[in-house]
């Protein structure tokens, strides 16, 4: 083969997956999200086998670094890693080590020195994983940073919805609750709008920054509605957020009682949505506060599926991320 012939070989197309880290869903393309969905489906098949294990990530080490207590998400990641044959370990930093001067950068560097290929971080301050990415070569997955983002939650929420609705495009999705402090809300706003859904945010004005509904170049377009009945009208997807009980103490709400009266997802209110509307909640659920128990245990709830899908989605993400690390 001559030099000329070699040069005319077509260049490889750019890979769909463009992330070395998973910090937020705001820069995920539709194609990347669909890649996650497809891979998740394969992972669900693995989870349906008697031996829920494949050796794809054998030799890789995943370390979870959780500065906020969370057994469920941490377990979900650990199981995901083990199901792929990776080694998983945990470092429990507590919120107090944040202020005690054990520098975040030092801790993450230590994890890398200990052999971590992937670090899964949950931190009470927005932007903490972003900062960590500048100082380590390992891949960082954000398991929730302050109010800012929780990308894996959004991806499993999206997957759960599309399993039932086959497509997210054109769906009316309503997110109800304390949007201001919710990283789950923010990441879902990005994910849902990228996949073509129409998003309405609903909550008390003190917990729902008006700026989010205004035309701007930092956030995707959403509708703001402070009245829950109007917000739920014709919804295909209803996502309720957990209300932190401290919000009343910090003066943002007059009382939990009033929040319940105005914003609890009750059976009567759910009837305003479409009859086949799905009900989601990132968990853990405050039954009787943001959502009526009958709905949690009712036919429209997909809350348990969210948890099950969480392991599969995280397996998919670890697989894709580990594969792209080699490049």
């Amino acid at each position, binding site marked *: 083969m001559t030099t000329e012939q070699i040069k005319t070989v077509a260049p490889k197309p750019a890979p769909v997956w463009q992330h070395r880290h998973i910090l937020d869903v705001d820069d995920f393309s539709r194609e990347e999200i669909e890649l996650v969905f497809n891979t998740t489906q394969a992972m669900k098949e693995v989870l349906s086998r008697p031996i829920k294990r494949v050796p794809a990530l054998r030799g890789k080490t995943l370390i979870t670094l959780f500065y906020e207590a969370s057994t469920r998400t941490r377990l979900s990641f650990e199981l995901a890693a083990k199901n792929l044959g990776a080694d998983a370990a945990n470092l429990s930093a507590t919120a107090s080590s*944040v202020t005690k001067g054990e520098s*975040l*950068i030092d801790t993450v560097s230590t994890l890398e020195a200990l052999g971590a290929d992937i670090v899964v971080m949950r931190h009470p*301050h*927005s*932007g903490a994983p*972003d*900062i960590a990415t500048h100082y380590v070569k390992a891949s960082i997955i954000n398991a929730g*940073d302050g109010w800012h983002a929780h990308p894996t939650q959004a991806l499993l929420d999206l997957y759960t919805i599309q399993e039932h609705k086959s497509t997210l495009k054109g769906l009316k999705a309503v997110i109800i609750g304390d949007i201001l402090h919710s990283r789950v809300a923010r990441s879902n706003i990005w994910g849902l709008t990228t996949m073509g859904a129409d998003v309405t945010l609903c909550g008390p004005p003190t917990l729902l920054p008006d700026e989010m509904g205004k035309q701007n170049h*930092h956030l995707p377009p959403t509708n703001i509605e402070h009245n829950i009945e109007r917000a739920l009208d014709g919804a295909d997807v209803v996502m309720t957020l957990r209300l932190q009980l401290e919000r009343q103490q910090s003066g943002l709400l007059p009382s939990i009682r009033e929040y319940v009266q105005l914003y609890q997802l009750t059976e009567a209110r759910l009837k305003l949505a479409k009859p086949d509307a799905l009900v989601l909640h990132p968990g853990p659920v405050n039954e009787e506060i943001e959502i009526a128990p009958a709905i949690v245990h009712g036919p429209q709830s997909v809350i348990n599926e969210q948890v099950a899908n969480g392991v599969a989605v995280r397996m998919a993400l670890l697989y894709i991320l580990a594969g792209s690390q080699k490049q």
Partner: protein
Amino acid sequence: MNKPLLIKDGRIIDPSQKTDEVGSLLVTEGKISWRGKGEPPKGDYDILDAGGLIVCPGLIDLHTHLRDPGYEEKETIASGSRAAARGGFTTICCMPNTNPPLDSQTAIEYIKSTAAAKAVVRVLPIGCISKGRNGKELAEMGELAAAGVIAFSDDGEPALNSYIMRQALDYSRAFELPITDHCEDTILTEGGQMNEGVLSAKLGLRGIPNAAEDIIVARDLALAELTGGWLHIAHTTTEGAVELIRRAKEKGINVTAEVTPHHLTLTEERVIGYDTNAKVNPPLRTERDIKALIQGLNDNIIDIIATDHAPHTEGDKLCEFALAPFGISGLETALGSLMRLVHNQKLSLPTLIAKLTSEPSKILGNRHGQLGTLAIGAEADVTIFDPDLEWVVDTKDFASKGKNTPLDGEKLKGKVIATIYQGKTAYKDAAAK
């Protein structure tokens, strides 16, 4: 005694005398001794070729944090003064939020003697409004005034207690010195990290709304009107504050105001990516606020530009955004970044220079010498800079211990070539001829 220095053939811009012409300047025994276009008087002197460069009075900064005493790892009077010289500043006024704070004659004497021994430029102290900066009792302003402070401030914190602020504005009238207030309603802004708006919503950071500044500005102006005292508003950043000050001046209220180079040139978007070097209080705001601030400068609503130089160690800023201290190390990039406004024709060069020389000098009065002017007999504080020289900011070259600037790696157009303080060369750039 130093040899006389001839600064030759520069474009002399001296707003105090409304001069803007090419000429030469002779400096003898620490004072401006001659100025003209032709041949200078005969004599044996050093020559500094200022051909193609701007020659102006030494820049004056009425708002700097030198961190000394108490936080010497962040900056000292010596290192801060060297940073000032690199930035073209021959006079800097240090804020009293040191440890111990500057609320007594002893503390002021410490500043003066350390500056005399170690500083390469003039350092003038600002005294506290309240004892220990506790906001509860007035400091002994008389003693502080006699010791030589140029203003009173609890900067870092607002004088939140309206009763104390009123007393301060009233009492200070006896000394004809301003009360410089850091206007922020800290109850409203508690936990705030950056400007409040869509971007803070996106980034998940608690916001510091414009209203928090406007509230205290309005309050302070009302108290200034009530007492007849002299209010100086530190680091103005909002459209609303500019409007309030405009109306107050129209009413004849005794108020002056300052704005920083970073609030004139950088927006909140610098925080994207959680860059802690862009974390400053008051925060970087929006294009709309910047537009109002520039208009405020041009309309003389805002009297001066002051850096609010706030150095921190690298370790201090190398952490989660919410935990990082506020502050930008600004002395060495002030002129370069401000020149952007001149190059974009938002501000004329003589106006810019006035805001850094003749206008601050009016606030200082003549108690510390004839400053901010190149009149014959004035202090020989001269800044020589190249308005068109492009350079890239490299914090490794900073004389300041604080490398905390969002401008690291940024290309600026306009650089200080030499800084003369009392006739001696305090700083000379490698590009000097």
